[in-house]
């Protein structure tokens, strides 16, 4: 007879590679939720996820109105893809989504990063993606501790009870 033993999660290393509102917030909520529970949290932003920590973009993230089957009109009717291509629709939908989140006390991206780092969470940018998008450290939010390789990130993601999460 083997006894079931649960190892508690003590640390999460979260990788965010996409730049839509929902992908970025999934990563932010998980990281903040971890520090709130007294766990260690490290966030690694790569590829389009870099928008979440790029000063110019971080508070203007969008959600996709085209190619997003879960997208619905207010009231629940399907959102026609053709509507999504009209200029301004994606911006309008995204602004609406952000205002809905504000009502639930979900902060804007920069304030969310403030909360995570206040709780001891750490924010990193992917070197390969930073080079690819021709960004510099000064283009990135001040929350970013360093621009590192994925290898560096793995090296700090170890330990008993640690998990790597990819969004």
């Amino acid at each position, binding site marked *: 007879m083997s006894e079931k033993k649960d190892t508690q999660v003590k640390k999460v290393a979260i990788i965010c590679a996409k730049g839509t509102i929902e992908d970025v917030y999934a990563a932010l*909520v998980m990281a*903040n*939720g971890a*520090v*709130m*529970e*007294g766990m260690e949290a490290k966030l690694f932003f790569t590829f389009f996820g870099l928008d979440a920590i790029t000063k110019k973009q971080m508070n203007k993230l969008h959600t996709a109105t085209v190619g997003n089957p879960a997208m619905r009109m207010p009231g629940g009717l399907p959102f026609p893809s053709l509507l999504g291509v009209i200029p301004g629709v994606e911006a309008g939908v995204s602004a609406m989504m952000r205002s809905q989140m504000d009502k*639930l*006390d*979900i*902060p804007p991206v920069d*304030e969310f990063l*403030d*909360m995570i780092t*206040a*709780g*001891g969470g750490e924010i990193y940018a992917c070197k390969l993606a930073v080079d690819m998008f021709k960004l510099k450290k000064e283009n990135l939010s001040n929350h970013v501790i360093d621009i590192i390789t994925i290898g560096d990130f793995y090296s700090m993601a170890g330990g008993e009870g640690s998990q790597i999460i990819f969004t």
Partner: protein
Amino acid sequence: MTQKTIAGVNLEVSDEGYLADSSQWTEEIAKEIAKEEGIELTDKHFEVINFIRSNADSGLTIRKVGKSGIVDIKGFYELFPGGPLKISTKVAGVSKPSSCI
């Protein structure tokens, strides 16, 4: 729910140690719960606890406490290390918040 004697008072608490009846709370009970969490309560702690007690019904979040003007979020983490919202609400004798933020 289980029975537990805290600061000489027999209280009903949840399995995680949250008071079932917030009105039974006293500062002595707060001190004893805090001690179990390894925290020695200061005046600053009590300022935060009073804010939590008076805002417990409005959906507490770490963000709200951070905007209370009493303590910023970093300070909140320093006062109640290892999970500020869940520990402070337990000490404050209110129910465990169901917030993700």
